[in-house]
């Protein structure tokens, strides 16, 4: 192991630009997968939450689907999509999308269930329709919590998108696998550094956004 670390220094720069391309693909996979995952999570969470579901049967169905998406590991989803849509970033994006639904579906539903029932009940008392009540009495109160969950989901996706490349689902992971197999540990070192910078940048950005949101909320209370 000492030898490997020794060979990593100094990191190689010969494939810098292809690597940069690859890590951008990784980031795009994470971003697109998370955004579409978040969009699809919302209706599913509304069906799964006790206070917004149309019926107990639908609720169990939605919860079951979300649990299934969450408990199957993202690597397994990646293998499944590589097999069904072929090698490349599309497979990785789909895997991250499903993984995001598993994560956000659950936390969105929990946030929705935690919303104060009073205002919603007050509108029920005057015969307001369920869709209108969800739009005005549930979602505005759940929005800050759901935004925070979405940002966590993005961080999570960026981290797992690296690994997905190892099974051929696109992005920097493939570069890393090739470098390792060809014993180019100096190249691997560059890749690992790039991953480190990307993950750190996304975490910093999402952390900043979350605390800004939290402060906004505090000034409103």
């Amino acid at each position: 192991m000492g030898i490997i670390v020794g060979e990593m220094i100094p990191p190689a720069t010969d494939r810098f630009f292809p690597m940069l391309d690859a890590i951008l693909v990784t980031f795009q996979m994470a971003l697109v997968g998370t955004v579409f995952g978040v969009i699809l999570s919302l209706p599913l969470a509304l069906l799964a939450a006790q206070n917004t579901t149309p019926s107990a049967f639908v609720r169990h169905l939605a919860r079951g689907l979300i649990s299934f998406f969450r408990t199957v590991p993202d690597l397994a989803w990646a293998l499944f999509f590589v097999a069904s849509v072929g090698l490349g970033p599309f497979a990785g994006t789909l895997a991250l999308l499903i993984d995001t639904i598993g994560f956000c579906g659950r936390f969105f539903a929990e946030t929705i269930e935690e919303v104060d029932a009073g205002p919603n009940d007050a509108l029920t008392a005057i015969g307001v329709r369920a869709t209108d009540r969800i739009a005005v009495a549930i979602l505005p109160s759940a929005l800050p919590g759901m935004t925070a969950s979405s940002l966590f989901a993005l961080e999570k996706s960026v981290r797992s998108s690296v690994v997905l490349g190892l099974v051929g689902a696109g992005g920097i992971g493939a570069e890393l696998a090739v470098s390792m197999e060809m014993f180019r540990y100096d190249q691997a070192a560059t890749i690992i550094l790039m991953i480190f910078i990307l993950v750190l940048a996304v975490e910093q950005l999402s952390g900043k956004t979350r605390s800004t949101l939290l402060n906004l909320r505090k000034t409103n209370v």
Partner: protein
Amino acid sequence: MYSPDKLPGDRPVAALNAPKAVRVQDLRKQFSPAGSAIFEGITFSIPCGASLAIIGPNGAGKSTLLKCCVRLIEPDGGKVWIHDKQISGLSRAKLRRLRNQIGFVFQKHQLIPELSALTNVLHGALARGTGPRYWFQALAPLELRQRAMHYLSQVGLSDLAIRPCSQLSGGQSQRVAIARALMQEPKILLADEPTASLDPRAASEIMTLLHRLTQESGITLMFVSHHMEHAKEYGDHIIGLKNRSLQLNRPAKSVDLRELKSFFSETPLYAAS
């Protein structure tokens, strides 16, 4: 026409054949099948445009009674008519339409804290329409926004229209809740201890406002109060719930304050828990 005022010594509130906004007959509610009823044999009525005060100790079932009138809680016996229409057989859609006609103000204002006062008032109109134009003031057409502003100014809050409700005081919030109820343009307004969480001065202000605005618009008012002074001042008629039954059912004019106060003290409080 049917006159339900059966207790001895009672006189009907208005003319015997005045149309009734709410008529309740022999109402009974019990929460657990094994236990005893919260109340039974409740019979009273309110003429259109009048106001009715409901008094009684904690746990007597006043809130339950109000909720039974719009089937937010299903009664276990007896009948309720709203504007001569019996409500027990209504389908879900018809029940929703009935509730659209009936405003409800609660002890806690139940506004949406993240949204502005104006938007919360606008939501009263959701009882008459549906869709994004009723959701947020920014999406509402001018006519709706102006109506909401009108009701906000009626409760004296035009200056705070765009303030989030989380930043309003208890009294201000309750005013917004009243403006929201007026925006609904209901025929009947139910108010469940609308002033219970306010200090005495704000409480009187809110009751005065509620009474004046409902009178002006010809809205029938049915309110629960712990304040005997309020019950007598703002109610045309007072009913008292105690020991599972209606023990007082009289025009406010014919009851004096001492009598009302002793209503609470002469027998041990009934409180199921």
